[in-house]
């Protein structure tokens, strides 16, 4: 239990830092664009306020699209009694409102959650329902409901959208600086020079940093969801065995209709699946007994590391 609390606190701090970083990045970028029209002070203020407005708007409109993108169908308790029971158990353990339950008719092994603690959606593929036993499914359900309880799905949707916004604005800004005509802003002092340097650096680095931040937050959130799930079920073994099934090199984790922008929502990275480089690497690693290399651009920590951390908790006694 102490371990679970330590991880939670650690991850919350990191995520707060990353969210702030996203906000500042977006703010600096918009400021850079504004600097083209106004003097540095006005540009900085308007940049930060536009950034704040964008983040607030995204917060209230996020995650509705994710479920419809996956072509999931809602199921009631008479169609999937066990799945509904498991979700209800985890609802009691987590103290959130029972989310709506969906199934994707797809042989892939995966699941995801969207929404928040009050209005959540959890989606399972037909494949994962067939491949895992009750305890394992409970671990997966606990992981997904942890995302809802911790506000991850919402946060990640915002972060992804901010990333997109940063990309678009950086593009606009670079065109303006390269092909811009008359610059009305003639005040040339040390402040203006600093502002220009910051603006150019921002335009070049912002989109790259955005992707790195997005992936880093996502990985932190996955760790947090794994540890919260163990806190909820008091049973690290269920989730560990489920992840082992998913880590099997022959497991297909990529649903046919998974959309790239929802990658961070799934329990395992849906776009690295069967026949992909990831799967081949996993097979090779298994043969050589090597540990996989974590990528800075990956939205999930390596499954092998997640399994190892759950094993550690089993030894401690969860």
């Amino acid at each position: 239990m102490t371990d679970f609390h330590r991880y939670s606190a650690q991850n919350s701090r990191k995520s707060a830092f990353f969210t702030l970083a996203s906000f500042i990045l977006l703010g600096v970028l918009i400021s850079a664009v504004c600097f083209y029209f106004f003097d540095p002070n006005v540009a900085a203020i308007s940049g930060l306020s536009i950034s704040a407005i964008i983040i607030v708007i995204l917060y209230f409109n996020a995650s509705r699209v994710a479920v419809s993108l996956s072509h999931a169908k809602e199921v009631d308790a008479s169609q999937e009694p066990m799945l509904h029971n498991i979700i209800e158990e985890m609802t009691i353990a987590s103290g959130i409102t029972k989310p709506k339950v969906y199934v994707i008719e797809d042989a892939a092994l995966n699941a995801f959650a969207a929404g928040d603690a009050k209005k959540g959606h959890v989606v399972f593929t037909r494949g994962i329902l067939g491949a895992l036993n009750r305890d394992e499914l409970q671990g997966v359900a606990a992981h997904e409901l942890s995302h809802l309880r911790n506000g991850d799905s919402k946060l990640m949707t915002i972060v992804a959208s901010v990333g997109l916004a940063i990309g678009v604005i950086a593009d606009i800004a670079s065109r303006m600086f390269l092909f811009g005509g008359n610059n009305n802003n003639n005040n040339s002092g040390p402040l203006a020079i600093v502002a220009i340097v910051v603006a150019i650096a921002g335009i070049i680095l912002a989109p790259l940093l955005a992707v790195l931040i997005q992936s880093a937050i996502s990985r932190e959130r996955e760790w947090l969801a794994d540890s919260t799930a163990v806190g909820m079920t008091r049973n690290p073994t269920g989730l560990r065995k489920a992840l082992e099934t998913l880590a099997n090199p022959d497991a297909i984790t990529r649903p046919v209709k998974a959309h790239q922008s929802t990658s961070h929502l799934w329990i395992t990275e849906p776009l690295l699946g069967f026949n992909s480089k990831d799967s081949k690497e996993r097979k090779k690693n298994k043969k050589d007994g090597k540990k996989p290399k974590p990528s800075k651009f990956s939205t999930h920590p390596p499954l092998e590391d997640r399994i190892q951390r759950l094993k550690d908790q089993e030894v401690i006694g969860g």
Partner: protein
Amino acid sequence: MVTGLIILGVVVVIGVIGFVLYNSLVSLRNKVQEGWAQIDVQLTRRADLIPNLISTVKGYASHESQVLRDVTEARSAVQGAGTPVEAAAANDGLSSALGRLFAVSEGYPDLKASTNFLQLQEELTATENKVAYARQYYNNAVNEMNTKIETVPTNIIAKFGSFPRAEYFTAPNETVRAVPKVEF
């Protein structure tokens, strides 16, 4: 004049602190009651499933009367329990009686294949798990409230506002850290 204002200020501050502490105790008491209601719902649901289970099992394994009688008795104990401690003990009794019933049912392939039986088994597993999770929430709330009732300064408010200690949902002969898990 100045002293009067200072005294008035001190009284107002103490009053506000008192209100805040009182309200925190009330919200904890509500949390405990909410937690108990959740356990109660599941215990009732579990007891309601038993008659159906008994009649299903009787259809396939009528001569296992001892096990069936144990389950029926354990069920009435759950329904008759008054305090959380009694309810916890009765619930544990029901769990072990059901465990024996499901162990016996292994010897009847027809029973094990019956859809009705499988559904009941799933429902009973689910309610047992729900009781276990609701119990975590309830016992945490009780712990939080009892600590506040016993520690300074809330203990003063608790004394005057009649906030009694709440009882844990724990049977006398088990530990709070028992792992809530069922495997059939």
